[in-house]
């Protein structure tokens, strides 16, 4: 190897450097002031959450990185990530965290913040629309199957209006309206 090898471009690092000017220092407070965020700052980056996650190996941002990104203030990257929506909500990360960080619950809160900014995957929004339009996620189609088993043909006790009237006045209603 010669010593005259020319160096061009920024130095090689293991990960891309973070652009500090784009950080939002308020983001960590937004999350930690929500009911599930009390333990957020106790995270000591051990990555146990990632080791417990069954799908982290195919993510660009793994659970411990997402938590670190929240602490650093990488608001846009977290809220526009596909990872928060692909999270299985299996709570394996949260169960194993030695610092009691409510990792899965925090990702739920991130999804709410993303939704507030209008970022919701199409098929998830479609489920919201089903709830507003039909008042339930699944409808009985084969009522004869129920009758064969001596069950009432309709879903017993289900009030469709119960959920419809509530969701029309909360964020779901707004998201569904904006999506139309």
């Amino acid at each position, binding site marked *: 190897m010669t010593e005259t090898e020319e160096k061009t471009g920024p130095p090689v690092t293991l990960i891309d450097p973070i652009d500090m000017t784009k950080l939002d220092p308020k983001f960590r407070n937004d999350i930690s002031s929500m009911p599930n965020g009390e333990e957020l700052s106790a995270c000591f980056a051990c990555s146990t959450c990632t080791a417990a996650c069954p799908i982290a190996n195919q993510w660009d941002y793994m659970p411990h990185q997402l938590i670190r990104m929240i602490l650093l203030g990488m608001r846009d990257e977290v809220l526009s990530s596909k990872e928060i929506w692909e999270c299985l909500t299996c709570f394996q990360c949260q169960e194993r965290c030695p610092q009691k960080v409510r990792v899965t619950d925090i990702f739920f809160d991130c999804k709410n913040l993303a939704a507030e900014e209008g970022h919701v995957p199409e*098929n998830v929004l479609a489920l919201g629309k089903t709830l507003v339009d039909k008042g339930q996620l699944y409808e009985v189609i084969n009522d004869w199957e129920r009758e064969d*088993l001596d069950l009432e043909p309709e*879903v017993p006790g289900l009030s*469709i209006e119960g959920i419809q009237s509530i*969701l029309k006045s909360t964020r779901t209603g707004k998201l569904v309206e904006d999506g139309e």
Partner: protein
Amino acid sequence: MPVYSLYMGCSVPANYPNYEAAMFKVAEALGMNLNYLEDVACCGSPNLRSIDTFGWLLVNARTIAIAEKSGHDIVTPCNGCFGSLKDVLHHLTHHKDDLKKINVELKKMGLEFKGSINVRHIIEAMYTDIGIEEIKKRVTKPLDGVGIAIHYGCHLLRPLDVTEFRPEILQEMVDATGATVIDYPLWKQCCGATVLPVNEQLAIRLARDKLKSMKDAGAVFITVVCPACGNQLDLQQLGLKDSYGEVYDLPVLLYPQILALAMGMNEEEIGLSMNRVPADPILDHLSG
């Protein structure tokens, strides 16, 4: 006779009436009085919590407040409904600010959330209130030790501080039928159902990993206590032939179906023919 408020949700009645029927048959035999809750709404699923936590809290707080009027605990056969209702109960019991906001809204509907009742999975109610010894007494056709893998479902077990459901409960319930519980490495892993709307390939891979882990460990059947998990593990087996070239032939039974058979009930009563991977081979494993 213990009395309960039964919350069905929308998935079991629409997709798994066989689960509903078997649950009723077994509960009746065990002397449990299940009353359908009236005028309650769909729980919304974790998807509703993702986009609209306040709406999700309010919908489920409303259901709990309705049930509080009768004073009986809520029981449900669906892990999704259980997870939502139990999580909302836990949340509102621990976060007084949110409770205040929710009660302002509930008051407009003539309701109030007090947190005076519990939310329980039907299996835990059978286990705790009836007890394994009583259940065993009613088993007249025990299974012959056939290997059954339990898929608990994420929202039944976690987070434990919310769900308060220990895996041993379901293990002992399966033991009581005479079957052998098969340990397998991926017992805690998600079935993949929740990610179906955003990444179907990932959902299929998760179901496949789970089925493979069960099969490799020697399971002959699978038991579940949730319509979404049941649907995922049952239905995906049909597609895995094409996508992975793998055949699992692992019948998926809702737990009350297994218990009902072991109690001597017949396959029609529990809608065994509705299970997609043919589940009738389990009849060959009944003795007595």
